[in-house]
C-alpha cells in the first residue's frame, strides 16, 4: 500500500471500543444499521475532515440493514477502516462488510451466547446460591473481561491481517467453541442434577407381619438409592425432548411446568425441597 495513512492505532482502538454502541439505535427496520454508522462516525469524521457532504453521504450509506455479533464487529470495522483509508469506495468495502456479517454473527453468537454466557452464568449463580455475596460482581467482571478481550483481539486481527484471515479464524473458533461446549455441557448437566428441585413427599407406614415395630417408607429415599436426582434429570430430559422433537415454545413449557407443579403439590405427591 502506498501513501500516508490517515488512521493511527489509536483510531482503530477507538472504533473497536465503540462496538459497545452498535445497538444504541437498534430498531426493527434496519436492526444495527444506525449503530454501524454511529460506530464508524469518528473514523469517517477524521477521514473526510471538512468535507461535510462526503461525511454525511458515508454515514447515510452505512445506515443500511446490518445485524451481526457486537463482539466480533471490530474485525469488520477494522477491515472497513483499512479499506477506506486505502481509498476504497463504499461499494468495495460493502462487499466484505456484508460477506462477514453472517458468518461472524454465527460464530459470535454461538461463542458468546451459547458457550461463554451459560458457563459463567451457571458457575456464578451456583456460587451465589452457596452464599458468596460478591458472585454477581464476579460474574460481570468475568463476562466483560472475556468479551472485551475478544473485541480487542479481533479488532487488532482485522487491522493487521486483513481479509484473508476469516477462513482461519472460523476454523479456530470452531475448535475453541467445541471445547467450550464440552465444558459447558458437563457443568450444565451437573447443575440440572443439583438445582432442579423435585422431592416426593409420599411416606407411609407399614407394619410387617409378626414384627413388633412399624417402619416408615419414604419414596424419595428409595428413589435416591436407585439414582440420586432421578426426577430432576428425567424432568429436564422431558423438557429437552419437548423442545427438540416437539418444538414446544418457552411459554408452553412454563405453563406446563407451573400446572404440573401446582397439581402434584396439591395432590401431595411433591413437596417443597
Amino acid at each position, binding site marked *: 500500500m502506498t501513501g500516508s495513512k490517515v488512521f493511527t492505532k489509536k483510531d482503530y482502538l477507538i472504533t473497536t471500543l465503540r462496538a459497545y454502541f452498535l445497538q444504541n439505535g437498534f430498531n426493527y427496520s434496519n436492526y444495527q444499521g444506525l449503530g454501524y454508522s454511529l460506530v464508524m462516525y469518528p473514523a469517517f469524521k477524521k477521514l473526510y475532515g471538512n468535507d461535510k457532504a462526503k461525511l454525511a453521504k458515508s454515514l447515510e450509506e452505512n445506515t443500511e440493514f446490518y445485524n451481526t455479533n*457486537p463482539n466480533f464487529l471490530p474485525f469488520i470495522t477494522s477491515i472497513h477502516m483499512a479499506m477506506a483509508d486505502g481509498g476504497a469506495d463504499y461499494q468495495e468495502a460493502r462487499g466484505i462488510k456484508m460477506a462477514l456479517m453472517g458468518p461472524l454473527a454465527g460464530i459470535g453468537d454461538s461463542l458468546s451466547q451459547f458457550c461463554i454466557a451459560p458457563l459463567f452464568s451457571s458457575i456464578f449463580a451456583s456460587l451465589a446460591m452457596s452464599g458468596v455475596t460478591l458472585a454477581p460482581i464476579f460474574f460481570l467482571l468475568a463476562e466483560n473481561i472475556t468479551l472485551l478481550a475478544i473485541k480487542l483481539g479481533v479488532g487488532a486481527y482485522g487491522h493487521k491481517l486483513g481479509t484473508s484471515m476469516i477462513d482461519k479464524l472460523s476454523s479456530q473458533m470452531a475448535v475453541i467453541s467445541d471445547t467450550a461446549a464440552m465444558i459447558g455441557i458437563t457443568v450444565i448437566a451437573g447443575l440440572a442434577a443439583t438445582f432442579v428441585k423435585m422431592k416426593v413427599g409420599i411416606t407411609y407406614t407399614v407394619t410387617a407381619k409378626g414384627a413388633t415395630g412399624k417402619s416408615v417408607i419414604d419414596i424419595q429415599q428409595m428413589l435416591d438409592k436407585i439414582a440420586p436426582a432421578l426426577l430432576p434429570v428425567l424432568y429436564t430430559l422431558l423438557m429437552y425432548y419437548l423442545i427438540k422433537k416437539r418444538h414446544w415454545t418457552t411459554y408452553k413449557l412454563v405453563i406446563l411446568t407451573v400446572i404440573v407443579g401446582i397439581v402434584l403439590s396439591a395432590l401431595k405427591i411433591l413437596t417443597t425441597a
Partner: protein
Amino acid sequence: MHISLIQAILIGLWTAFCYAGMLWGIYTNRALVLSFGVGVILGDIPTALACGAVAELAFMGFGVGAGGTVPPNPIGPGIIGTLLAITSAGKITAASALALSIPFAVAIQFLQTFVYTLCAGFPESAKKALKAQNFTKYRLISNATVCLFAIVGFFLGFLGAYSMSTLQTLVKMIPQWLLTGLSVAGGMLPAIGFAMIMSVMLKKEFIPFALLGYALAAYFTTPVIGIAIFGTIVALLVFFFSGKKDANATTSSANTSTEESRDDWI
C-alpha cells in the same frame, strides 16, 4: 417491609442502567445482577442472592434468541420477583417469587418488541438529518433506542418498587396451597432453562460430558467449580488426542500429531 421513595427511585435508576446495558452487551440485564442491586438498595443481600441465582439458572436458556428475537425479560424475576420476596419478609420463597414473576417477564418481552417497532421510524429521520448535514441530530437519533430503554427501565423499576405494597396485598389473597404449588413449580422451572441451552449445545458426541456432569453432581456432590475442572480435563484430553487417530492410521508415532494439534491450539 416498606420501600421509601428514594429507594424506589434508586431501584428505577438501577433497572434503567441494567436494561440499557443489555444493548451495550455488558450483561447487566441478567437476573443475578439485577437482583443484587435490589438487595444492596433494600439492605437484604441474602434474599436477593437466592432470588437472583434461582432465576439466573431458570432464565439461562431464555436468553437464547437468535438474531433480533426478543426473549422473556429477566427484569421480571430479577427486579419484580426479588422485590416480592424481600418485602414479603420470608413469606414468599425465592422459588415462588420466580414463578409469580413469570407474567411480568413476558409482559416486558412484549414491551421491548413494542419499543423496537416504535424505533423502526428512526432510520428515516436519521437519513433526513444527514441530508441536512445536521450531525448532532443524527447522533441523537442513533442513540435514541438506548435512551428509550433507560426510560422504560426506570419506570419498570420505579413503579415495581412503588406499587409493591399493592402487589403484596394481591399476593396475600393467593391461598396457601397455591403458593406451595408455585414454590414447587419454581423449583422445577430451572429444568426449562437447562433443557433450552442443552437443545442448542448438545450433539451426540457430547453425551459423555452430560453423563460426567450428572455423575459428578449426583453421586459425588462435587461443587460446580470442581465439575468445570473435571469437564476441562476431559475436554482437553479429547482435544489433544483427537488428532491422533488419523495419525496412527498412517504412522505409529504419536509425537508429531500431538505437536501439530498444540500448534493449532496456539
